[in-house]
């Protein structure tokens, strides 16, 4: 029977299947961070269990770390304890950790690919829903809960039931000023936040294969915002070139063997999908969210929707609730919405190409006077690269704050957060109520759009600033 890429990866990792389909899958790569792991290690200790394959796990502290000067350590006592607990656990169980002062430290979904730990055809898990990011390499990557983290540590396997296959095809070309962030926002707007529930999504089509490796990561990253646990893309030469020579990528004869295996990773031509959606690149505009769910999205030329036009009662109520929270009126042009802050960073858009995109727009311009804007590179290595290219100067000269790597205001667990009713153009992935700080109002955009908003002081069209 013809198989999809997801089917093939599944079959190659099947340790055991019960009659009812409940399956035990082998996990090749496990990423760990400080927030969702302490209780898992505690569980191992309480039941006297060991980590089965310590060198298949890589740990990093990212959610809680300060993005200002780190020489004084972490001032928040609880955050500090959590980061120290990770350090102790990694030492006790023999797991490799990138500590806070390691150049390689950064957001877990940025460092995996950067180190070559993320590889095609593998099963990658992490106690974090944005693990879907790694699917850009043609791996089956998904978020798990803390009990499952403990399960993987103890057994190097996971109990799963198979999802259905969903293909999203995007053909054509991206218009100027439009990025993969806009593609995924448009997709989520189309399928809804639960559109992918129960599915694994394969992104395909000529537009997808024309994207760079980093742009693909942005798409897969937000798969979970469409309800699917995993999203993947058939790996190609761009992926292999990206991985070659990375510290944890296969070496010598293993590289050749891996390449041979990776090259065969694709859905069969006649494989069937349970659900399919098609988009055309020419219809994709720069997008921005107006509400409190990533599906609440419009193009930058659009207006805030009117709940009275909604027939569905639930939808109407949720629009009303969102607008109230966001402090917005139906019918307002989104371009007329003034902002207070700009955040460029996160595992969605905190990589070097994202910073280059934003820097291109911001160069030789000043940000609006009432705006506070920050760039938080996704990892120490991204930061280093950006500084080598002089991007830090471009940002600083225009009025941006240039910070240390971490999750930062994507979820506001550290000191970086919005105050109540503050409005932010953010390159992150979630605009939930309170996500960037209690009462904070988030508008999700691409890095270029965030830069444009910083200059204009209100949400704006990046195409206006395109040279």
């Amino acid at each position, binding site marked *: 029977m013809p198989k999809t890429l997801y089917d093939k990866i599944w079959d190659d990792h099947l*340790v055991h299947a019960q009659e009812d389909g409940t399956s035990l899958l082998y996990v090749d790569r496990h990423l760990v961070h400080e927030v969702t792991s302490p209780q898992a290690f505690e569980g191992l200790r309480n039941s006297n269990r060991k980590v089965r394959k310590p060198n298949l796990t890589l740990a990093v502290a990212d959610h809680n770390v300060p993005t200002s000067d780190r020489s004084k350590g972490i001032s928040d006592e609880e955050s500090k304890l959590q980061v120290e607990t990770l350090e102790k656990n990694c030492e006790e169980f023999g797991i490799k950790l990138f500590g806070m002062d390691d150049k390689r430290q950064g957001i877990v979904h940025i460092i995996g690919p950067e180190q070559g730990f993320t590889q095609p055809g593998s099963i990658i898990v992490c106690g974090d829903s944005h693990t879907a990011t790694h699917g850009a390499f043609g791996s089956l990557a998904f*978020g798990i809960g803390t009990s499952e983290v403990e399960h993987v540590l103890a057994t190097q396997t996971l109990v799963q039931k198979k999802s259905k296959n969903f293909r999203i095809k995007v053909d054509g070309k991206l218009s100027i000023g439009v990025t993969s962030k806009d593609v995924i926002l448009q997709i989520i707007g189309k399928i809804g936040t639960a559109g992918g529930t129960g599915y694994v999504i394969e992104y395909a089509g000529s537009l997808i294969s024309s994207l760079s490796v980093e742009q693909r990561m942005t798409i897969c990253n937000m798969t979970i915002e469409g309800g699917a646990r995993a999203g993947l893309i058939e790996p190609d030469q761009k992926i292999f070139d990206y991985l070659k020579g990375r510290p944890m990528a296969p070496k010598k004869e293993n590289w050749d063997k891996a390449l041979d295996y990776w090259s065969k990773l694709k859905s069969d031509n006649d494989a069937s999908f349970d659900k399919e959606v098609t988009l055309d690149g020419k219809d994709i505009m720069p997008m921005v969210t107006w509400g409190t769910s990533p599906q609440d999205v419009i193009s930058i030329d659009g207006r805030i929707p009117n709940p009275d036009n909604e027939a569905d009662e639930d939808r109407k109520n949720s629009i009303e609730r969102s607008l109230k929270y966001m402090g917005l009126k139906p019918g307002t042009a989104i371009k007329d919405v003034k902002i207070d802050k700009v955040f460029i960073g996160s595992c969605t858009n905190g990589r070097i190409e994202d910073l280059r995109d934003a820097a291109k727009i911001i160069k030789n311009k000043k940000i609006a006077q009432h705006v506070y804007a920050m760039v938080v590179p996704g990892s120490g290595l991204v930061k280093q690269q950006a500084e080598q290219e002089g991007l830090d100067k471009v940002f600083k000269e225009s009025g941006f704050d240039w910070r240390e790597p971490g999750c930062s205001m994507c979820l506001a667990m550290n000191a970086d957060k919005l105050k109540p009713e503050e409005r932010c153009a953010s390159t992150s992935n979630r605009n939930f*109520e309170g996500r960037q700080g209690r009462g904070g109002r988030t508008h999700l955009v691409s890095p270029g759009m965030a830069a444009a908003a910083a200059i204009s002081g209100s949400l704006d069209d990046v195409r206006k600033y395109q040279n």
Partner: protein
Amino acid sequence: MQKFKTIKSIPAYLPIVNIDTDMIIPKQFLKTIKRTGLGKNLFYEMRYNEKGEPIEDFILNTSPFNNSEILIAGKNFGCGSSREHAPWALLDFGITCVVSSSYADIFYNNCFKNGILPIVLPEAKIKELSEYSKRKEEIIVNLEEQKITFGNNEIDFEIDQFKKKCLLEGLDDIALSLEKNPKITEFEKKLSSNRPWIFND
């Protein structure tokens, strides 16, 4: 894990769709290194004002719902972050059963690891059940028979049989998987010859 027993309780009804795990337990409470103690912060931003005082008309702050063991909510419950702190907070508050027309996958799985039963029912049935919340009447959830009883009515619900067994018997997932140790070892042997680069890091 606690074995799942039949529940008799007045359900609390939260008629909001897409309740995400950030809403269930906001990030400031994720700094804990324990599983317990999160109940007081469940739905924190809806439940307390900026000064940290309880918001009087929020359902879980009012009697009898402050003792509810069953939560009825809008569709796509538990979307967003994978934080298992969400089911931990529900459990710590005393909620061991959630009823909705749909759930996000990760949250759904996390429930079972913590002895919480997430029931899926069609929207119409949810509306019917929510009346019992409004009238402050008890309903009974019986997992063994896959039945919810309310007044003179009964609704059957579907559930994966393996998950049901684990809940009823309070089975430890890891112990079950460790019984398959020989199979895992055999798989690893094959793996080291078929995809040797996996272990070579």
